[in-house]
């Protein structure tokens, strides 16, 4: 059974989502939870924060804490190669088409980027289902929102295609019956595949909208721009029925209250990482920071 909770860190570029994700992961690992920190951000700041060379292969940076960097291009390549191989196996007139050209262009198609992230997400979800937390450092806002919207959007298409395919099969069966032709017992492969797709997107949608399984952390700063973008993220997620789990208010000037924050965010539990005078680079520095501020962070989490 999948028991891992998925924590997503979103926000405008530069607000500190990678550092927040790194701090949160280190904090949870220190508490004894088994955590995998996954960087879905093409900028891959985690390797700079932890001062380690990271890749698709997990690297253990501290007890109970592993880090993975997703190479989305390699996921796209593998996916297209799989489709190509499947076509080679099933098509009988392969040489009639110039599919090679088509495939060389297709890898740059819009939409494949977020699907590569979805494939990586599904893979990790299965692989680490018995861990406690999967923490995702998300890519820039536009791509993150496309990632969350992909299952709902795909379901609209899949449901329409499914209805159309069923109508075709029903009518084909009617013709076979009236013309007294031999009944085909093999199930329509296209219908099978569409049903498979529907199941896949339905499961993803249910996971994303599950209030405990998917915990979206929105990181924002006191400045107007990050505030405005965070509001857009909040409303886009709401449209997708994805609840905001926690707001992380970063870079708040000392002795300043949260009174100027939008009431929308004030409604969600809020966390504020105290200001650090030294840069939070390297696992030792992260651990030292958490040790120094453990009481305050823990108090905030308890009141959340």
């Amino acid at each position, binding site marked *: 059974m999948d028991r891992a909770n998925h924590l997503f860190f979103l926000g405008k570029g530069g607000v500190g989502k990678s550092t927040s994700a790194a701090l949160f992961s280190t904090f949870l690992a220190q508490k004894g939870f088994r955590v995998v920190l996954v960087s879905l951000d093409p900028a891959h700041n985690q390797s700079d924060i932890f001062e380690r060379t990271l890749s698709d292969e997990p690297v253990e940076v501290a007890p109970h804490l592993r880090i993975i960097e997703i190479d989305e291009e390699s996921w796209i390549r593998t*996916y*297209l190669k799989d*489709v190509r191989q*499947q*076509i080679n*196996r*099933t*098509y*009988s*007139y392969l040489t*009639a*088409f110039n599919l090679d050209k*088509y495939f060389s262009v*297709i890898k740059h*198609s*819009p*939409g*494949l980027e977020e*699907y590569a992230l979805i494939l990586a997400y599904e893979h990790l979800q299965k692989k680490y289902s018995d861990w406690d937390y999967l923490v995702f450092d998300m890519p820039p806002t536009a791509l993150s929102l496309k990632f969350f919207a*992909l299952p709902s*959007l*795909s379901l609209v*298409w*899949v449901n*329409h*295609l499914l209805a*159309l*395919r069923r*109508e*075709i099969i029903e*009518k*084909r069966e*009617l*013709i076979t019956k*009236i*013309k*007294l032709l031999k009944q085909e017992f093999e199930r329509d*492969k*296209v219908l099978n*595949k*569409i049903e498979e*797709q529907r199941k896949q997107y339905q499961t993803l949608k249910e996971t994303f909208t599950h209030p405990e399984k998917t915990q979206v952390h929105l990181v924002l700063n006191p400045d107007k721009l990050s505030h405005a973008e965070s509001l857009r993220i909040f409303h886009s997620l709401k449209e997708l029925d994805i609840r905001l789990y926690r707001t992380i208010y970063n870079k708040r000037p000392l002795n300043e209250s949260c009174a100027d924050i939008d009431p929308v965010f004030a409604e969600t539990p809020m966390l504020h990482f105290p200001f650090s005078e030294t840069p939070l680079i390297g696992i030792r520095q992260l651990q030292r920071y958490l040790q120094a501020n453990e009481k305050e962070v823990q108090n905030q989490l308890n009141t959340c």
Partner: protein
Amino acid sequence: MNGFFRRIIEKVVAFLKLSDEVARSNAVETIETEVEELENIFGVLVLGSYVGMPSPPMQISLDLMPFMEKELILMMEKVDTASQPLSQLFSVLDIG
């Protein structure tokens, strides 16, 4: 004499069989055309990007592509005949 009657009966049976077949074919002709058109729509919907039409999210088309060789061939044929719409219409209506 028996042979003569048997031959007549056989002919009548064959005639009835043929009439039945023709009647059944006529009955489903409209449905067959409808299915053909539905299959065309399905092909265009899923593989439209191959011939420059708007299409569903790329991964949906790609996942279905290995099972849609027939539709892909059909699409290519449609592209071929697209430049001769009148001749296609004449051939459908059996004119000329």
